[in-house]
């Protein structure tokens, strides 16, 4: 199990991205007996969803509804998972697609690691934990987070001081300081890109002065603060550990703004902000919660009712443009707001904590990954209006936020659609003896 590389035999489908869309697509295909290779660039599958506190509009615990899919994919006999593995590019040739991958060293032999965290306990170095959006601390070698899959330690070479304490602590001698980056190629019948989205920088609008205050936070940071096992165990202001008494949400802080290069709507911010405000009203019952918005886009199933509930709970919704945010004394923040419903009257308002709804932006570069231009919004192009998960390359499909910002439900539906298109594509190319599109590829074997 040392060798993380796939066997040379081809797979039916390579799914790129182990977030909720990738997991769903992989499961839909594997359950039809296709051999699937799922590659994930992070050290655990689960994507953004596994880091969320709760999900709108049902307010279920996000971890509780992500882990069953993670676990199902992880234990599926037809799915092989490679974590810490990045897509370099897909090379389409007549009848096949060659997927070029790069596996980053984790300095741990996953075949030997038993996820016991003894190395983590022995490690003397801590750095800001990326899973906790920098708010918590992580050791230089650690299991990425509590419900990570695989439950294997990963060493961060940027922070490791190479003291060897982990090697001494490891009961299975699994640590490999000589592990190297590996590049390899997989032949795939079809490819599904479920690479998700990124978020534009908090400091994109200079007038918001995000770099000057730790109390201007990202929605993902607030998700971690709200999570049952978050970095502080409760919601506190990052600057000084104060229980915030007044929290502002600024919507469209990175979207619907031509000057930021994101003219489109990021589609999820209204709802997650409402949800976060609702969760805050439970976590901080006395807090004053205000959402500054342009339009509330509660368009999905059950969303409008959720929004109306939030209003009924006493969350303030103010239609207005936040012109600037200034740090003031006591780590507070002053917001200059143009109140649209009061004829553009300008008011200064003070808050302890401000959450900026960043814009959702592409992470995959279609030009690099596929050799095709991106759509005007930067995401993958959708050339076919009937087969909406098709890309410009035959046999390469896409789903979820790789095709533009999307909430969890819509991502899951698209993932199913991409799996269906891929299955049709494979069936059309299958030999007559397996007309139903049954896989001829050998089942994958190793989890990494």
């Amino acid at each position: 199990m040392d060798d993380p590389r796939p066997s040379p035999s081809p797979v039916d489908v390579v799914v790129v991205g182990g977030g909720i869309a990738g997991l769903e697509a992989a499961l839909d295909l594997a359950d039809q007996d296709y051999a699937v290779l799922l590659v994930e660039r992070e050290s655990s599958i689960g994507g953004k969803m596994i880091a969320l506190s709760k999900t709108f509009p049902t307010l279920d615990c996000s971890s509780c509804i992500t882990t069953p899919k993670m676990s199902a994919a992880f234990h599926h006999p037809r799915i092989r998972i490679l974590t810490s593995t990045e897509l370099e590019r897909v090379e389409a040739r007549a009848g096949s697609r060659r997927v070029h991958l790069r596996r980053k060293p984790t300095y741990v032999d996953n075949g030997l690691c038993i996820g016991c965290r003894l190395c983590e306990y022995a490690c003397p170095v801590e750095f800001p934990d990326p899973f906790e959006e920098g708010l918590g601390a992580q050791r230089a070698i650690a299991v990425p987070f509590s419900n990570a899959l695989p439950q294997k330690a990963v060493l961060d070479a940027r922070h490791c001081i190479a003291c060897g304490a982990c090697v001494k602590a490891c009961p299975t001698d699994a640590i490999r300081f000589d592990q190297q980056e590996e590049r390899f190629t997989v032949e795939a019948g079809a490819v599904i890109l479920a690479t998700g989205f990124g978020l534009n920088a908090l400091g994109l609008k200079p007038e918001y002065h995000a770099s000057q205050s730790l109390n201007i936070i990202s929605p993902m940071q607030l998700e971690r603060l709200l999570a049952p096992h978050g970095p502080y165990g409760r919601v506190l202001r990052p600057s000084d550990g104060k229980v915030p008494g007044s929290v502002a949400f600024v919507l469209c802080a990175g979207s619907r703004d031509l000057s930021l290069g994101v003219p489109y709507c990021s589609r999820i911010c209204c709802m997650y902000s409402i949800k976060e405000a609702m969760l805050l009203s439970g976590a901080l019952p006395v807090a004053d919660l205000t959402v500054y918005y342009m339009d509330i886009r509660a368009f999905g199933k059950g969303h409008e009712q959720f929004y109306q509930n939030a209003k009924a709970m006493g969350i303030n919704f103010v239609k207005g443009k936040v012109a600037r945010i200034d740090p003031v004394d006591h780590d507070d923040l002053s917001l200059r707001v143009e109140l649209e419903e009061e004829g553009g009257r300008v008011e200064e308002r003070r808050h302890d904590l401000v959450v900026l709804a960043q814009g959702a932006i592409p992470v995959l570069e279609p030009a690099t990954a596929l050799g095709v231009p991106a759509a005007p919004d930067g995401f993958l192009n959708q050339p076919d209006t009937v087969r909406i998960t098709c890309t410009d390359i035959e046999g390469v499909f896409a789903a979820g936020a790789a095709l533009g910002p999307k909430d969890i439900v819509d991502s899951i539906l698209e993932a199913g659609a991409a799996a269906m298109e891929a299955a049709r594509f494979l069936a059309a190319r299958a030999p007559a003896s397996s007309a139903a599109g049954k896989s001829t590829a050998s089942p994958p074997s190793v989890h990494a």
Partner: protein
Amino acid sequence: MSRSSAQPDSGPASPRIGVYVCQCGGNISDVVDTATVAKTAALIPGVALSKVHAFMCSEPGQAMIAEDIRNEHLNRVVVASCSPFLHELTFRTAVHRGGLNPYLYEHVNIREQVSWAHHGDPAGATVKAIRLVAAAVHRLRHVEPLEEIRLPNHRRALVIGGGIAGMKAAGDLAGKGLDVVLVEQSATLGGRVNELSTLFPAEESAAPLVRRLNDDLQAHPRVVVLTETVVKAVSGFMGNYDVMVGPAPAAAGAASGADPQEGRHLTVGTIIVATGYDYYRPAEGEYGFQRHPQVIPMPEFITLLARASGETLEWQGRPVRRLGFMHCVGSRQIEGVHPPQPDGRVNDYCSRVCCTTALHQALAAKRRFPRMAVFDFHQDIRTYGRGHEDYYLRASQAGIMFFRFHGDDPPVVEPGSNGTPIQVRLKDWLTWGEEVVAPLDLLVLAVGMTPRDNRGLVSLLKLPVGADRFLQEVHPKLRPVETAVNGILLAGTAQAPMAIDETLASASAAAAKAAVLLAHDEVHLEPFKARVDPEKCVGCGVCFAQCAYDGALVREEGQREGAPITRAKVNPGLCVGCGACVAVCPTRAIDLQGWTLNQFEAMVDGLLSAPQPVAATNSNPVSDGRTH
């Protein structure tokens, strides 16, 4: 101190149980005295051998179990190691390799729930590990071999509804090589999309889109399309639905009495419901509807604009110089403000597509008739989708005038006072909430979507319906296209308002799930279902009321001591294994396979009667005393 009344199920006459205690390289053995656990476990009746290993999950650890099963004639196995979520499957497989039924295995969690949770109390942790092992051993005495449940699967799908969702789902399944029957109650396929002209955001025409979907269906001989046909009766369950289809009521009137389609039976494995939506029909007087002929719903306007010719748009012989669009008609309704629907509820949901539709049509009208003044009355502009925001931007640039109202104070439509037939009066919140009057020649109501009235189908298929009257999925994220009825799937706007691209994605997602269900000649189900012991069932019938899954418990006529009796019987195709029926059975005739009450009782007995620890002489061979 066991005082159990539990009777052995039908465990082995002489259990030979192997107990394996994992040290997990110190993770367990640094806290739990694993040697003592193993030595003490050997004292529990039924235990034939007990062993310690540094890594039970390793290949040598697994091989040891398989060898012991063969050489030591073990007939049950316990492994005490990490959480069952990590390695229960591993050891079931190892037990199977040794030649035993994989369910003759019990997993004990002494890492996450013992050594890692009680590191400050090694003695207590060791005692607890022994207790949990004793519970497992006691349970295994009552455990029987289990087999996966296999049901025959009819590898054919029924798609109900021939709109774009149904067409797409059927085309996908056929394209994958599966048999599909598509039934449509009207005479044509394409549904509501046939009424549209140009579609956003690609600005393509509706007709070619429907044609492409239709071509896809025609290309596959595996698709049978039955128009003017409806579902008349349904019975069965996942993999085995028997569906009777017949002529749609309107068509039946036209056809002769002896319609050959009457009572046609189909056997299918899965059913996709793609029955679509209806447009909201405004009440008389709602925004002046039916009081002023110049107030029309969106579909009518789409047709009007598509057919318009000449220099000006005309409505009922009058030029339309001032055109208005009213958002949220029949959507985002508020109790006490809007009149309730026939069922007493208001449509409090957002219909998702009307904002972009309104702006799309407003721009189309403006482009076609540049001198026309266009007004837009909204609460929020919800152009959320890919390419949708562009319509909003362009509408602003094109000089369309926007007004914003609050849902609890909607605009009023009244006879015009400035030479136009009507005018809209509202408090505009883009200008301090001042009252404005907009004279109009025509007002288009951006009507929302409402669920199709398909009460008949809902009751035939026992479909769950949500508070918004749309069909309800099991879980919006875990299982978004599945219903609580196993094997019945949802596609498109029968479930919720959706745009065209979203409808197509939803249809394909449903098709993917159908393809999974139809992947094999048999449906394989986990064995953890309820089972009735006919010897014990006295026919009291109390279990039926407990079962929330229609058809999972069925009545079966039989004999008991010469008298007729109606017993309960489980249909494993429909049972989900929740156990609600088990708790009320007065004779313990029903049990959950793999989780029987006797097994639980035995585990409690095991916890309470576990032997005291017997110190092992050579304790913790691997441990070096580290704690963490």
